[in-house]
């Protein structure tokens, strides 16, 4: 309890102090980032409690903060569309759809319309929210996702052309894998004698996926890890601070 009080005092005290001393409005947040970042890095190596739990607790904290900021996002969405309606901007009629949909779903969801008890799950069978989820949310989500089937075809048509040496390699690898996934790939090379089994397309495509593909993936992942380590360090040390915003406020 003492520790909590201390933390709260530090948190609110620093904000209070920054009310009067402007430069602290940037200094304290940078200090806080440094402290939080280092704490979580160090926690990895300390087995004594509460360090191992820190990451888990912090991600719960993050979720709570994110829920509060939904008000910012949702508020912004409403504001943009209401302004559109008010100013009769292009396509303003559709903004009415957005606003209505938003408000209705928010109400039926928060008030659990259709459920008998407050303790029922929010997506319980028979609630209006569940109906909305099945009839509106899922079909829309799944259909937009399924657009990928069309786009994957048009992207393949355009991109897989032997324009340069690199593009040719991309094309050949993709083509072998594509064919290897169909019966065509199987019968195309099924006549190959045993010593040449490696070139049998299903075998070849498995080999490409598990060897050169793996090599490329690993190199990409090692590179990404270094990029993330370096970016994280720059954030922790305050070298990268564009998230803090402008000076005047």
């Amino acid at each position, binding site marked *: 309890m003492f520790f909590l009080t201390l933390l709260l005092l530090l948190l609110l005290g620093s904000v209070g102090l920054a009310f009067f001393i402007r430069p602290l409005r940037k200094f304290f947040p940078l200090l806080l980032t440094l402290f939080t970042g280092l704490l979580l890095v160090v926690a990895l190596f300390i087995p*004594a409690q509460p360090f191992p739990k820190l990451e888990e607790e912090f991600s719960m904290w993050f979720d709570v903060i994110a829920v509060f900021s939904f008000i910012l996002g949702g508020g912004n969405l409403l504001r943009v569309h209401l302004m559109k309606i008010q100013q009769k901007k292009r396509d303003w009629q559709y903004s009415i759809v957005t606003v209505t949909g938003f408000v209705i779903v928010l109400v039926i969801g928060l008030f659990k319309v259709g459920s008998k008890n407050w303790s029922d799950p929010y997506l319980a069978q028979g609630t209006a929210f569940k109906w909305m989820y099945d009839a509106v949310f899922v079909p829309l989500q799944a259909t937009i996702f399924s657009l990928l089937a069309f786009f994957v075809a048009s992207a393949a048509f355009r991109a897989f052309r032997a324009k340069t040496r690199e593009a040719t390699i991309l094309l050949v690898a993709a083509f072998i894998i594509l064919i290897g996934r169909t019966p065509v790939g199987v019968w195309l090379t099924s006549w190959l004698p045993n010593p040449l089994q490696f070139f049998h397309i299903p075998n070849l495509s498995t080999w490409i996926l598990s060897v050169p593909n793996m090599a490329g993936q690993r190199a990409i*992942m090692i590179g990404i890890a270094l*990029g993330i380590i370096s970016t994280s360090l720059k954030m922790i040390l305050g070298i990268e601070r564009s998230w803090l915003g402008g000076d005047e406020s």
Partner: protein
Amino acid sequence: MRFKSTYWFSLSLLLFFIHPLFANQVLSPNPTVTNPFVEVAPENVVAKDLPNNSGKVLQVSWNFPDTLPIMPRTIKIYRYEHDTISKHIADVTPNVKSFLDTSVMNGIPYRYSVQAEYPTGIVGGLISEPAIAKAEWFDRSKINLFVIALILVSFILGYIFYSEKGQRLFIRKIAGIQAIEEAVGRATEMGKPVLFVPGTQDMDNVQTIAGLTILSSVAKMTAKYETKLDVPVSRSITMSTGRETVHEAYLAAGRPDLYSDDIVHYITDEQFGFVAAIDGIMVRDRPAACIYMGAFFAESLILAETGNGIGAIQIAGTAMPTQLPFFVAACDYTLIGEELFAASAYLSGDKRSIASLKGQDMGKAFAIVLIAVTALFSTLSVITGNEFFTNISTFLLNLTISK
């Protein structure tokens, strides 16, 4: 300069290869004793604290043969606290030879006794020496991780400090990054907006942060050229951060008058709802340049194909290995993995950030040396079958992950 970095690199390697000297010794397993008697009792009951944890757990182990003329029904474990109270804490099956007691307090000595219950009766009951569970302040099993972290961090920080002394570092050109400025330029000429999507993930993803730092550079360009910038986002916190970033960029470019909060606007947290809306924005506002920088999932190809359909210049950057193929196929330029993180340094021109890239290169060199040396010794070990080489290669493999 060059000499120094080689020296430093070698020193790091040396440190890395000798670090197991500071690690824990591996304990050899207890020998198992078989007993000729029919009703065999568990022997050598030992209680001990486990290393590298937060305490509150003791390990009780005992010797007991695997096969017996008569199998006991169960093994009973008793615990003595302060040498007075005995408590039955668990029953385990006879083929188990150790038990983790997770119901202990730190700092209190406990003794254990282990008994075998046969249909004919209970045998055993030797009481172990006391053991105390304690929390530790450094996980020695992670010492290799610690050393690697130290080395990589020292590379990056080292170069950052070098750069403060005014050293200029060579950095090669990356086509995708140069294309960003051209794309903004083209949008300006055509009088069309620039669309920037900082991924679909929240601020707890470093890729989103990298995307926003690139946004900062892009916003400086659009402010300078007076081009319209549109940044739809799918997370509220990203929106807040994005606004700060763009605002700062417009201030830095001396055009705060052009800034408005509406540049960065929230759409929805739903992945595909977000995509549907951006598709709508694309076909209606017809941006001349679409820039996608951040973490993307399946939406990558939907965005890139729609952008392609309106004839926009498209530049993407992501560290999602699964989505890179789609961006590579459908966009004009793609920043692959690490290049996404490099882009912000390139674009900002900040000396320290550029220096950190050199540190990342040292990290890659470190990885290459490690892979090459380990591969070499394990090859020698396979070819010669020599125990010396086998030991070295196992040792090298254990340096990264010890089992």
